[in-house]
């Protein structure tokens, strides 16, 4: 076991845990954002650099700080380590820089992008980015291509997190797509646009943090915040069958796997569940999906609210109206 202090809060975690996972065990605001790390994909992480943190004290034995900022998703903790995330201006500055870098070649076509509303890059830019750009040059563009009959690739939107190539590598037995070229010309592609065709390829859509890979059966059907997410399951021979149905009235518009609070899928689903059962009668509906209050999807959520919690929340807001600083949200830990 190793004791680490993250933003002044101490926590004990198992040896070999990464700083990011230690922070996630702690929860709350001090969890660094992550665009490329994906806990259920081996070898992911270290690439996007938004999870950079400052290690102010290397360990109890060797209290020297690490001179550079480190990627929290790939740096294991040491006993006595002191980590600064939101408390370090250096980290916030670097993160702002990374967000800017991610956005300079991003088309910002959110108004026509299917991912809008559930996009990690939108959230990240909202929390850590600047509101204007200093980039005046031409953005890189690619043609849209079909990879398989169900997936559309907008390479222009891609931030090269490499997650989808790991899905192809780790969930299925034949790897048919990867990264071509290098530098800012690199692109996710299949060999001469060969179709990605295997039972679990649809998970590439779920792991994509932006709108680069979208579901062709859902494209332009609806904005996500006009749909109602419902937990549902069916008995499936290939996967766990646990999914989320995104419904409009009684119509199933889209089926996805269940994502946790960090936007990560723990149980991947097969293409049959995802594409071939868009009929509410095929599913046992468990109830409304819990969606984070901060999410734009929550605009439309109709989760049963505990009246007592609601009262406290309103009181909290009234305190704020009186000019007092906003106390911690109820679901946030200190």
């Amino acid at each position, binding site marked *: 076991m190793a004791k680490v202090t993250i933003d002044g809060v101490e926590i004990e975690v198992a040896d070999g845990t990464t700083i990011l996972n230690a922070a996630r065990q702690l929860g709350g605001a001090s969890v660094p954002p992550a665009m490329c790390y994906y806990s259920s994909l081996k070898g992911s992480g270290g690439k996007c*650099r938004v999870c950079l943190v400052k290690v102010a004290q290397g360990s109890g034995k060797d209290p020297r700080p690490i001179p550079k900022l480190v990627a929290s998703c790939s740096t294991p903790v040491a006993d006595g380590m002191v980590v600064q995330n939101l408390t370090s201006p250096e980290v916030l500055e670097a993160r702002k*820089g990374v967000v800017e*870098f991610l956005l*300079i070649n991003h088309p910002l076509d959110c108004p026509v992008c299917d991912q809008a509303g559930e996009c990690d890059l939108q959230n990240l830019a909202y929390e850590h980015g600047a509101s204007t750009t200093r980039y005046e040059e031409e953005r890189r563009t690619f043609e849209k291509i079909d990879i398989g009959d169900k997936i559309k690739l907008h390479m222009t939107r891609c931030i090269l997190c490499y997650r989808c190539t790991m899905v192809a590598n780790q969930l299925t037995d034949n790897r048919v797509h990867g990264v071509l*070229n*290098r*530098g800012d010309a690199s692109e996710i592609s299949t060999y001469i646009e060969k179709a990605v065709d295997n039972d679990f390829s649809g998970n590439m859509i779920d792991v994509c943090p932006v709108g680069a890979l979208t579901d062709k059966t859902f494209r332009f059907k609806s904005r996500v915040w006009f749909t109602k997410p419902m937990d549902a399951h069916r008995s499936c021979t290939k996967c766990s069958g646990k999914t989320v149905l995104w419904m409009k009235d009684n119509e199933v518009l889209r089926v996805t796997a269940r994502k946790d609070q960090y936007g990560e899928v723990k149980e991947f689903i097969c293409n049959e569940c995802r594409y071939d059962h868009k009929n509410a009668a095929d599913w046992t509906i468990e109830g409304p999906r819990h969606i984070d209050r901060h999410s734009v999807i929550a605009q439309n959520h109709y989760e049963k609210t505990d009246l007592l919690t609601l009262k406290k929340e309103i009181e909290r807001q009234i305190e704020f109206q009186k000019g007092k600083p906003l106390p911690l949200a109820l679901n946030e830990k200190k």
Partner: protein
Amino acid sequence: MGRQLLLEHIAVPGIETFEVYRKMGGYASVEKALKTMTPDQVTEQVKSSGLRGRGGAGFPAGMKWSFLDRKSDKPRYLVCNADESEPGTFKDRYLMEKIPHLLVEGMITSSYALGAKTSYIYIRGEYMYVLQILEKAIREAYAAGFLGKNILGTDYSLDLYVHPGAGAYICGEETALLESLEGKRGNPRLKPPFPAIAGLYASPTVVNNVETIAAVVPIVNLGGDEYAKVGVGKSTGTKLISASGHINKPGVYEIELGLPVEEFIYSDQYCGGIWKGRKLKAVVAGGSSVPILPAELILKTAKGEPRLMTYESLSEGGFISGTMLGSGGFIVMDETTCIVRNLWTFARFYHHESCGQCSPCREGTGWMEKVLHRIEHGHGQMSDIDLLVDVAKKIEGNTICPLGDAAAWPVASAIRHFREEFEYHVKFPEKVKNPKHFEIEPFVSNKQLVMA
């Protein structure tokens, strides 16, 4: 001319063949090491020699060797990094082309010290003709019994292979090199684990530059302590310098570390002064990625002491007024050089060579190149100069591998020392339309006017 340890016999005709090389005393270090020394003794000699990595970072080679995980039951590997692609550096090519057996000999001795049974030379894809020279040398060494099973009748066996890259600068980064050698896309790995623990095929691996491995030969022949007497302080031995640019005698020179920079540039033994009788403007002392220094700072440090060709002296003053010895790519620029244009060329190179794995380097290098292109062609604004500084700052230190730093340092240093020149490009867009603008009308710095 100072003492030569690597290129001593370079002028002997036929030195690239085994017979001539052997006649000139070649492969003595292999005989000495295998017959009279244990592997640990060889490592000790390298440690006491104070040899520092010649690839750019200057990390002590003996210490790197001692980090190798010797307890692991996996095979150990020695990999020679011959992926020399830094603009302004060409010393390894010269060494491998002219005297290939020196590298082969160094590989055998070093592999013996590290206990490697298989070793690789990872050579840059553009050096295909050098690869053939090396393979011929290796065939000759096999035939003479210096490679293969039971070398010189001892129970030590070694196989040596040459592997060409496919033309990527990034594969000179040691972990990207290992990925490429394994047959994968050459993306740098996340560290830790370091190659000394899990490198090639997840086995303990040492990656060394060509010149570092070649330097093991004189170290074993002379003894580590004797080798350490050459040079100054912690910069021991000799170093190959690839001198290029506006000098009378460009080429590869072997110098004793500690030679004054002024003597290196102006002495007839070495660069022979600035061409066409012009004045020195700036020097990039160690390959394109190290900070550029103006003439007054390269000849003398900020304290006024003469600068020497050593790791310490060149980096004196940090990045504010110093630079690095780096890989020894010594690029000299005369007064007609446009620093902005030169920087744009460097930025274009790093943009082209970024692997695209991590965001700051992938996006930032392209951004810097585009802004520099704009300034150089007379479309810049004053705010662009600060923008460049800021972008460079946001890349530096935040990337997986040092390529991001290498792209950021030249930009930051050029603006630090030559800001006036950037401002000139913004103020007089008409004058910089001609690519040779400073040849027609040399740039006069206000700083120098005040000093004079």
